[in-house]
């Protein structure tokens, strides 16, 4: 079974983000999720995501931030891929040009939130995958993400 079968998780994109700070960039991504109906209250969700960031920043190397929250302000699960025009400071000396923001409803079943995170973390370790994310257009990145996100990676070698 693929994680994105029947679009359990919708992939959104926002490229060419001009923000110069982490909070601006995150606000832009969350606003889009609100406009598209995934997030019910952008302020509430922003607070939830920021709380997690402040405890332990989600920088994962290679210029990528992976902010996430399982929040009461999320209606449907989504991942929004943000590509920034400028490298922004994420935390300490870590700069980010790609953001994967994971939004999962508080009520969602089981550990969907963790499964998405695990899935993305594994995918983002591959150079060719990261290079594609930087080169492809929004539509192509969406297709790539739908094709690549697989729950059973590592357990099912038939794929």
């Amino acid at each position: 079974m693929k994680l994105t079968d029947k679009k359990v998780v919708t992939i959104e994109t926002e490229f060419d983000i001009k923000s110069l700070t982490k909070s601006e960039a995150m606000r832009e991504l969350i606003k889009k999720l609100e406009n598209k109906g995934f997030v019910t209250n952008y302020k509430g969700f922003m607070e939830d995501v920021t709380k997690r960031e402040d405890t332990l920043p989600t920088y994962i190397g290679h210029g990528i931030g992976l902010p996430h929250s399982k929040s009461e302000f999320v209606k449907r699960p989504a991942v929004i891929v943000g590509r920034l025009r400028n490298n922004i400071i994420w935390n300490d000396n870590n700069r980010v040009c790609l953001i994967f923001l994971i939004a999962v409803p508080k009520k969602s079943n089981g550990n969907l939130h963790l499964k998405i995170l695990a899935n993305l973390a594994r995918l983002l370790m591959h150079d060719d995958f990261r290079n594609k994310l930087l080169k492809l257009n929004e539509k192509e990145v969406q297709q790539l993400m739908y094709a690549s996100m697989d729950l059973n990676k590592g357990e099912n070698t038939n794929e």
Partner: protein
Amino acid sequence: MKIVGVTSCPSGVAHTYMAAEALEQSAKKVGVDIKVETQGSSGAENQLTSNDVANANFVVLTNDTNINGMERFKGKKVVQLSATQIIEKADAVMGKLLTLNKGELK
């Protein structure tokens, strides 16, 4: 050569899987047989069997947090590194283990 590993990290998610993926990727590059158990927030996945461990030449573990089931590796050659070190230097780790393994065969 066969390697088994167990990865875990304080936040319990991203780095656990990134380290596992890094090890698997590096092993694949040099044709080494590997199985990595992940101990994330959602519990242990891809769990190592006693056979897996018995047949392994080396055991690679993360040392950021406690690994469950350490007793499984008693008497094995164990390498412990942080998840971050593994993520950044998996190729080098794999190279080193290959060299060590060749040395033993001589």
